[in-house]
């Protein structure tokens, strides 16, 4: 704990903020940085970091929130599955409240009689499958590279124990593919709706995949990347390192999170994932649409543990709540305040889109921590 507190020291923060202010040249508007991860979005809002940054520095929230990027169609499929007789759907807590296309969430489905259980770890689902052999237990697996190794472990345990009633509804997605998609998007390239001058790179994801995968973007798109931890001083330090790269015309991958991230990442975790999963040709992301080679599914030899195969699942066309701007928010094109639903019909109690559900979602972070600013801004505009 002492170790974590060292990264939240207000005195050091003010020193860093002063250095950031001194090194941002007033005439340069080139300090628009996207924090890819919802973990960073959350830290920025929770600690009020934007109050410490001078006006030329803008932070743009990226799509790195696993609950947020899951498209409505996948939620619908999970709900339809959970409503079948004999199925027990195990899910992480946040997912329960994400509305599907009929406005029904897993929480509502549960209240209506579906057997939906909230779990804290993939291994909880294995425990349920062992304890209740008469149920077909499905793990609703979501997340970036951080949560994939535990799912791989759960599958391997299911193999070892010969579990016939355990499957995975796999929605694991990949960070580098999403970053590339953003950098190649028309918003950036054709319409210039977003300008990005650099990335604050993922913290936990990078502990698994390492810093090496980002080298391509830094080089190909000439954007600096600084991998940063989720503590507030990490974020400030990363901003300073990005500013220096911009000022010096560099575009390199730098690692602020050296205490946890190595160049090659976690070889053991990567091996486990490679053993169990293979790339999907394409996968739909909320906000980004179809992104090639951006998600994982179980390999053929683990097919019996794949819920999509065992239960012949297919996604039906789905639609977002009309007016919901989650997609634009996830691409960094709009801020939550530019969505007309924000704070009127869409609140954490009655979320219309996924970005209001997860604490890592930009809308939830704005609502929970920054609403007072939002109200002030709207009053000024009106």
């Amino acid at each position, binding site marked *: *704990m*002492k170790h*974590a*507190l060292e990264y*939240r020291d*207000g005195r050091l*923060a*003010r020193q860093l*903020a002063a250095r950031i202010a001194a090194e941002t040249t007033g005439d340069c508007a080139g300090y628009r940085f996207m924090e890819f991860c*919802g*973990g960073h979005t959350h830290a920025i*809002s*929770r*600690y*009020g*970091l*934007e*109050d*410490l940054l001078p006006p030329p520095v803008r932070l743009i929230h990226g799509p790195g*929130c*696993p*609950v947020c990027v899951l498209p409505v169609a996948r939620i619908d499929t999970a709900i339809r599955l959970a409503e079948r007789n004999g199925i027990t759907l195990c899910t*992480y*807590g*946040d997912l329960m*409240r994400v509305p599907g296309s009929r406005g029904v969430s897993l929480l509502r489905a549960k209240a209506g009689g579906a057997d939906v259980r*909230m*779990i*804290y770890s993939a291994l*909880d689902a294995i425990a349920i499958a062992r304890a209740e052999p008469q149920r077909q237990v499905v793990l609703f697996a*979501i*997340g*970036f590279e*951080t*949560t994939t190794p535990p799912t791989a472990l759960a599958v391997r345990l299911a193999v070892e124990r010969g579990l016939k009633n355990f499957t995975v509804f796999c929605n694991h997605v990949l960070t580098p593919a999403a970053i590339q998609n953003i950098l190649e998007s028309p918003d950036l390239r054709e319409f210039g709706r977003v300008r990005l001058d650099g990335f604050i790179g993922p913290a*936990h994801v990078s502990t698994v995949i390492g810093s090496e995968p980002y080298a391509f973007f830094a080089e190909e798109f000439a954007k600096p990347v600084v991998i940063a931890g989720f503590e*507030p001083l990490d974020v400030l330090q990363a901003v300073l390192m990005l500013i220096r790269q911009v000022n010096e015309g560099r575009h390199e991958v730098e690692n602020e999170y050296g205490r946890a991230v190595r160049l090659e990442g976690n070889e053991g975790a990567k091996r486990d994932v490679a053993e169990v999963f293979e790339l999907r040709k394409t996968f739909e992301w909320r906000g980004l649409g179809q992104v090639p080679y951006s998600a994982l599914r179980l390999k053929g030899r683990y097919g019996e543990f794949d819920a999509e195969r065992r239960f012949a699942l297919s996604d039906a066309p789905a639609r977002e709540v009309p007016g919901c701007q989650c997609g634009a928010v996830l691409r960094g094109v709009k801020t939550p305040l530019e969505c007309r639903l924000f704070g009127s019909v869409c*609140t*954490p*109690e009655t979320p219309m889109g996924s970005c209001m559900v997860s*604490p*890592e979602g930009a809308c*939830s972070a704005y*609502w*929970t*921590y*920054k*609403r*007072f600013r939002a*109200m002030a801004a709207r009053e000024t505009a009106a």
Partner: protein
Amino acid sequence: MSRRAFPALDLRAGRVDLSHGAGGRAMAQLIGQLFHPAFDNEWLRRGNDQAAFDVDGGRMVMTTDGYVISPLFFPGGDIGSLAVHGTINDIAMAGASPRYLSASFILEEGFPLAQLERIVRSMGDAARAAGTAVVTGDTKVVERGKADGVFICTTGIGVVPRGIEISVERVRPGDQIILSGSLGDHGVAVMSRRHDLQFETDMVSDSAPLHELVRDIVAAGGPAVHAMRDPTRGGLAATLNEIAQQAGAGMRIREAAIPVKTAVAAACELLGLDPLYVANEGKLVAFVSKAAAAGVLGAMRSHPLGQDAAIIGEVVPDAQRFVQMTTDFGGERMVDWLAGEQLPRIC
């Protein structure tokens, strides 16, 4: 009818069955051999379906609360002591001294009598220690699976001395917000014993009766004490937002001033929780006019249950009724209500 009219309950290996709630011999046996000895007092001994008592001068305060906690036993307490402390504290927050309690039990078929005895004894001990008595009660048994071991409802009655008016509508801008001690001890102690979460911690629940601390606060602050509340479910964040709504004002608090034990901070870090939202069972927040705040703070710190008390912020004019916090880090953020349950992070 003497207690000896029935054979002894098997308090070692016996279990609650449906007959214990059926109004017959088995129920009388349970009440006579388990509840009465634990709660023993002159009102129960009379054996009526109600308790009659005199109440001395002042206004009466009444409150009721249901306890459905899981697990039933946790470091620093159990559902029994909690059911006494929680209700006493709701009474005390009006500046009242608690007098009488009722206890209503909903038992699940199959619940071990040994555990029930442990809970009921703990409840009796807690009531006596706080100078109150459980004077009437009720027992129901539901089929297995229809409850989670034991649910307890307690109702409490207390008396506020004349001239004391502690109520949320008296909160106004300028009031100092005083917190009686560290946040999150109870929630973390309980979560550490949840079967799906188990983790190692030396935290014990702060569950405690606060009426004596309240007495000292009122003695020191008198009419300058405008309102008090105990931040239980939803934590300090929920309590401050409730009061901001009810009082029609905003709040500004300082993160650096809020006491949180290292073990609680560490557990919250691990689980992705925020101590501001974690439950407490032996803490209160007092809203006191500025002039009297230092005196009240001093009185709180001289009481064992308030030795870590701190002024954490103040009430401000704000039509939006927002609770805002200056972070340790120097930035500003809102402290919102909790949406749903606070959940561990998944990424």
